[in-house]
């Protein structure tokens, strides 16, 4: 009898613990109806502004709730991918750089062209070159939320010391100035290089990433070999800081802020970071210029609608609120960035001329030369190509292998990715066709 009692107790305890253990598998939260989910990218501080967007949205759709989910850049992708896989893709997503291309090419995003055509007045607010950045195979998949592009920050004190009177206007001059300012721990030039930031250096030397039909690599040329050899030598000589080629963000900006770098190619957002870390930077000591040839790489954010959103019209209305008029203005002054809405940007510049005059000339550079943006090729596997190419270039730039070898290997890899796209697409369509 005692055994039976203890056995019964054991059985019950085991069952309870099993249920407890398995309870992690159950979906406790019931899906809420009439709700759109907005996945934002690294905007944890923008809660109040987001609430104002939602308040405006509720004037149009009082019966639809809006939920914001924000993720840091480093885990945004992993979060979004798991949401898509589990069948709960957010209705609206905020993407950075070229990530959207993969989603659009696989049918994950809604074509916004009909919405843009229908709302011609809204569409007219935007810079055409920026809207162009979110076109894949003739269809527009994104509306610009805010954008930055690269520019050349220069240390006027180091310029003065080296006898340089104006920013460089050619690649040769860029290198010449870099050497002139290099002394001891100080380097003449540095670039940030994640995403495609370094490509402006290639563009100003007439080097293309891919052929015009986007089917083959086009960068393995004698000109590119000569350029990489020159950059590698300048890196070895210290004229270009080797931190340039590590892909980091904080360290290069810190070094410029520490007064150790003559010229830094970075996004406009780097300035506020520098200002918060040093006291020597002011209108007299720092200059802003375009890179030679006016080439720059955008780091733009856009809002997209998921293809399987239940409320595409409501999502579109939310996007309109966030990307234009007062919604865009409050975002711009909060992030210290320009938006896609050119009329709003004038208001933002007025605001900063009163509050932070130092950023006005900086932001002016962001409005110019939008026709010479690079690094925004409409390639479905943009991320993969980037991953295939850059480590090879890095090896050559840090003098680990020859430029010719690095470019040859990179070309092979990129061509493989581009040809694999064709093969897998054919495979997919042939199977689909057979069904």
């Amino acid at each position, binding site marked *: 009898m005692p055994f039976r009692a203890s056995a019964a107790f054991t059985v019950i305890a085991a069952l309870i613990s099993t249920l407890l253990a398995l309870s992690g598998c159950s979906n406790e939260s019931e899906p809420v109806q009439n709700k759109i989910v907005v996945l934002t990218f690294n905007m944890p501080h923008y809660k109040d502004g987001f609430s104002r967007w939602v308040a405006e949205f509720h004037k149009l759709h009082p019966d639809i709730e809006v939920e914001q989910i924000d993720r840091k850049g480093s885990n945004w992708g992993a979060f979004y991918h798991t949401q*898509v896989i589990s069948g709960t893709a957010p209705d609206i997503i905020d993407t950075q750089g070229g990530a959207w291309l993969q989603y659009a090419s696989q049918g994950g995003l809604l074509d916004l062209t009909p919405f843009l055509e229908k709302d011609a007045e809204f569409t007219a607010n935007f810079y055409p070159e920026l809207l162009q950045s979110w076109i894949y195979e003739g269809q527009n998949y994104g509306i610009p939320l805010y954008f930055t592009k690269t520019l050349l920050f220069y240390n006027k004190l180091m310029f003065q010391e080296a006898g340089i009177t104006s920013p460089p206007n050619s690649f040769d001059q860029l290198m010449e100035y870099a050497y002139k300012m290099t002394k001891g721990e100080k380097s003449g030039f540095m670039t940030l290089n994640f995403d495609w930031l370094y490509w402006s250096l290639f563009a100003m030397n007439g080097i293309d990433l891919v052929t015009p039909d986007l089917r083959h690599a086009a960068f393995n040329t004698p000109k590119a070999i000569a350029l990489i050899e020159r950059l590698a030598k300048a890196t070895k000589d210290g004229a270009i800081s080797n*931190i340039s080629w590590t892909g980091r963000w904080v360290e290069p900006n810190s070094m410029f802020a520490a007064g150790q770098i003559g010229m830094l190619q970075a996004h406009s957002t780097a300035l506020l970071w520098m200002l918060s870390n040093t006291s020597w930077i002011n209108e007299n000591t720092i200059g802003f210029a375009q890179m030679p040839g006016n080439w720059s790489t955008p780091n733009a954010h856009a809002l997209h609608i998921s293809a399987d959103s239940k409320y595409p019209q409501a999502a579109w209305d939310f996007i309109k609120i966030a990307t234009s008029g007062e919604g865009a203005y409050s975002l711009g002054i909060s992030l210290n960035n320009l938006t896609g809405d050119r009329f709003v940007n004038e208001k933002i510049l007025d605001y900063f001329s009163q509050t932070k005059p130092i950023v006005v000339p900086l932001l002016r550079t962001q409005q110019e030369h939008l026709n010479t943006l690079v690094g925004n090729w409409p390639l479905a*596997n943009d991320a993969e190509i980037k991953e295939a190419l850059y480590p090879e270039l890095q090896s050559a730039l840090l003098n680990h292998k020859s430029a010719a070898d690095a470019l040859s290997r990179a070309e092979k890899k990129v061509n493989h990715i581009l040809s694999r796209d064709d093969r897998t697409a054919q495979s997919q369509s042939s199977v689909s066709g057979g069904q």
Partner: protein
Amino acid sequence: MTVKFGIGNKRLRESTLIWFLLFPSLAVFLLYRILPLAWNGVLSLQFWSMYKPPRFAGLYHYKELFLYDDVFRQSLWNTLLFMVGSPIGIALGLMIALLVNRPIFGRNIYRTIIFMSFPVMTVATGVIWLWLFSEKTGLINYFLMYIGLIDHSQPFLEDFNLALPSIVLVSIWQVVGLYMIIILTGLQNIPPSIYQAAKIDGANSWQQFWLITFPLLRPSIFLCLIIGIINSFNAFDLVYVMTGGGPGHATELLITYIYKTAFTLARFDYAAAITVINFSLFLALTWLVNRMSGGNAGAVETN
């Protein structure tokens, strides 16, 4: 007959009880380990995108891995090199354990200090060492220049040849305390009478170590080896914080490459194929080490 039935019934009851008690853990293990592993194997044989139904791919991804992907080959090689750090760490752990097993003054403090690196969060360890290795402001460069070993600062984590050894060094530093504790436990389980008998037989210290200590420590040492192998396959956070796999792919391990492939490039099918290779290699090495230890790595003798 009645007696036999009684015993059988008792065994049945005991066995039922054991299975009932094990069931929750086994259920969780099945759901969160075995099923994902099986699903991973299936996924590696498919063309799979986030938005489209999967299609059978056969060995397409494996072919790409072995024929085209030199990053995979480098990650595999780096993982094996990372593993080479384990015997070095174990040898170091053994030396320290022998030292702190002796009746020296303050040995408990030494044991604690040496073990303290192990419980520190790996991300914190990575950040601390990132600064220590810094080319411009790092203490290691300062020290090496101060003692005259180098004449200018070295970019340890930006150098293609130094980056991986630097990370292996940090990994050894982090785990050596654990190795020491495991080996120390093994050392303290060796009966002193064996050493007394060896002394009477005229064995010197060296002979005592090679003929008594080392063979009797075999289960502990092989347990450390298995931990080292696990560590090599799981050293994601350390690499991710310190170098992100770079420069180039000089510090890319299989585990970081799997993460990048899946979550940066969203190629879950291809990442699944790498995971299958990773798991197979891990299984084979663990099996091999266990066999070498006589099949009882880390076992506790109960009689």
